[in-house]
């Protein structure tokens, strides 16, 4: 833990609601401990704004430990900011230099309409999963757990794909605003497991149709998605998805 403080300027996209116009506004932050996270810096800014009679900045967050997938915005043009494999709630001020200006902008994608300031509506992701991203098994009808053997490697790979937190950074980073990485990760997770086999083809078709219907673009192999993914979901899942249809 360091004891010095850091001074930052935040240039933030302010837009009260989807119907209102938006613009960037710059805020000089009070000197802060570098051991605070960027979201905690926003908390502090919001407290100051509130006391000054201004509207606090809207942004999504909850767990603040990189697992719920609620947080996410662009920091200087990068989804979740400059740290590899890090969601923005886990981005600490010590990674910036004293005097830096950070530009914070919401995810921009047709399928993610803006709600307020840095907050967007990602319910399209849930509609994609609802279209078939599951195994159809009712409670009570499951066979004994060890009746289905799954190799260790295979289980670990399935886990790697299943660890996607649904933050939407991949879509925000993609020039086409494609949801291919998100969809491919879900298809990959279930396709690797015996439980996922019976519905494999149907699931793949359904999710890809839903993806287009929700207004996500198509994949042109730019691979920006994997580069920003806080869970390091590999772009190989997209190739797999394309191979197996």
């Amino acid at each position, binding site marked *: *833990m*360091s004891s010095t403080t850091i001074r930052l300027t935040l240039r933030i996209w302010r837009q009260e609601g989807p119907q209102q116009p938006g613009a960037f506004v710059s805020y000089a932050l009070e000197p802060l*401990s*570098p*051991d*605070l*996270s960027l*979201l*905690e810096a926003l908390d*502090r800014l919001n*407290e100051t704004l*509130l*006391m000054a*009679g*201004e*509207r*606090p900045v*809207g942004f999504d*967050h*909850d*767990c*603040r*430990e990189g*697992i*719920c*997938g*609620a947080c996410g915005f662009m920091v200087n043009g990068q989804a979740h900011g400059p740290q590899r494999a*890090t969601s923005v709630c*886990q981005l600490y001020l010590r990674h910036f230099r004293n005097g830096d200006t950070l530009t914070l902008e919401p995810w921009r994608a047709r399928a993610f309409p803006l*709600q307020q300031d840095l*907050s967007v509506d*990602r*319910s399209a992701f*849930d509609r994609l*999963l609802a*279209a*078939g*991203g*599951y*195994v*159809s*098994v*009712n*409670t*009570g009808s*499951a066979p*004994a*757990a060890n009746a*289905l*053997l799954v190799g*260790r490697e*295979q*289980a670990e790979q399935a*886990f790697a794909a*299943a*660890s996607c*937190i649904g933050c939407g950074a991949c879509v925000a980073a993609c020039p086409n605003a494609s949801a291919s990485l998100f969809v491919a990760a879900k298809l990959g997770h*279930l396709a690797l*497991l015996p*439980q996922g086999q019976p519905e494999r083809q149907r699931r793949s078709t359904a999710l890809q149709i839903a993806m287009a219907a929700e207004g996500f673009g198509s994949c042109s192999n730019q691979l920006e998605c994997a580069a920003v993914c806080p869970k390091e979901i590999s772009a190989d899942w997209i190739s797999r998805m394309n191979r197996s249809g």
Partner: protein
Amino acid sequence: MKLDPQLPGGAIQDAWTQRRRELPLISPINKRRFKVLVVGSGLAGASAAATLAEQGFRVTLLTYHDSPRRAHSVAAQGGINAARNYQNDGDSIERLFLDTVKGGDFRAREAGCHRLAEISGAIIDQCVAQGVPFAREYGGTLANRNFGGALVSRTFYARGQTGQQLLYGAVQALLRQVDAGRVELLTQRDVLDLITVEGVARGVVCRQQGSGRLEALTAHAVLLASGGYSNVFHRSTNAVKSNASAIWRAHRRGAAFANPCFTQIHPTCIPSGDPGQSKLTLMSESLRNDGRVWLPAQAGDARPAAAIPEAERDYFLERQYPTYGNMVPRDVASRRARERCLEGHGVGPGGRSVYLDFTDTISREGRAAIESRYGNLFAMYERITGSDSYAEPMRIYPAPHYTMGGLWVDYNLMSTVPGLFVLGEANFSEHGANRLGASALMQGLADGLFIAPATVSGWLAGHLHAEVNSDHPACQAATAVVQARIDGLGSSGLGSGFGSSSGGGRSCDSLHRQLGEIMIGACGISRHAEGLRAALAQVQALEQEFAQELRLPEPRVGRNPELEKALRLEDFLQLAALMLRDALAREESCGAHFREEHQSADGEALRDDVNFCHIAAWQWNGDGQEPLRHSEPLHYRHATPSRRNYR
């Protein structure tokens, strides 16, 4: 108030089967006539909603999150228990049952604990069938780990993200029902009140976060699965928005609140440095297997860890507990750490942390061994603190983590309000005064997959009330109450608007921080009557200050996160007072509840089975009135109450 736990008679082994047989059934055609409201999409809520929909009920699920996948179950790391005895190490339903009763320090119902152990195996079956990628052995069978001091390996896990994987399984089952049109999913809704008609739970009032509009939603039964209330301490391992509002408002509408002071503190969390820090991150308890806890022997020693010679280090857990050493239970480890820090030995900002040192294991087994075991935890620690734990010891401190207390429910998970069921961490159920590691996920899924679907259905069979519409007087009255609350917040202060905000000079965050300090000091790891009484007065004063000094942004319609926070904080303030009263009334030490007046000469907890072998259930008695304390006696026929001893 009548507390009938509806306990089954007969042999405990057959009780749940017997109960299910007794519950009346509803024909498939008739099921469609019933509407069920579920609040919460964590393991408990998502699994209950999906299962009830599969059975044919019409379900509406509400969550404050923008997606059901974000419920805080997602953050559980360690694993989920089940008595499967896959490791052939002597585990059984009986053993898990007894471990749960003992772990809870004999403050939970035997029948409920037995049912939990019985159901545990079927939970794993269901999760595997959903595609949860549990860890596996090379031969393809499920792997287990040892967890939370149990003598057997019964914990199933998916790397350090078990909760995430279980939740995604449950949420996918839920979304399948959404797609089938059997579940209506309403996200970004804050549930702010319960609607009762003729004493029966018939709906909730919620606020749509985007528009700020209030809605009254109605049903034939209401299920609350809204999680725990550790955020009453402000900073905890919970998510920043985790809250008690749904259960607290139901409490005010007649649902008894059981054992509110039973809250668990987790010893291995990343401590706080700056007042602006928003949460305390948990690090898996497994670290204590290989790390040694120590502090400088000399109080006030400010040298960096590396400069303190071995002879001047105090490995206080190893010294005080030669047998268990660093592996003593959560509450014991937490209490001893706090004591040493209060005596001036603590390290880090404000002297509020202890070292967890891996040097010995690294020199014994090599860096690679530690890296393979804890690589992700070390990385997380470094991300948050900027410090490399291979080179210098971690700093850890206990943090509020889990709440055993919650709304009182009977064996069928129904609260004292007919038609109101409570599931998961939101109820008080089977963990008594202390929860075993990896048992919360098990309980949430037991409630949601198996127990509630059977008992809710059984209750509905006799209660096909007429539909209540949202223009019913009860709905209008409840909505008006919520509207008045929203309009009244902060308005008794400076009154007129200042810029686009109104009210006095205190932000919600600053008031919440203050509440947290009071509660962690008086009602955390260690409690005593004088401190609890003083805290009660402080909380009441803070409630006044909240009413007079709160500042809020205007307008109160539309998206307004500060308003959401304020509504949650108002409920936490009231709940805090109840927790303090409960801690005061329970004149004994049991489980996580440690009263300094009730300890042995060597500082161990003294339980009082003569006067306190019961569940305390509090009844709301109106604003400004003292709540009423009722008790439900506990009987032990299978487990013999014994005293814990780790020395």
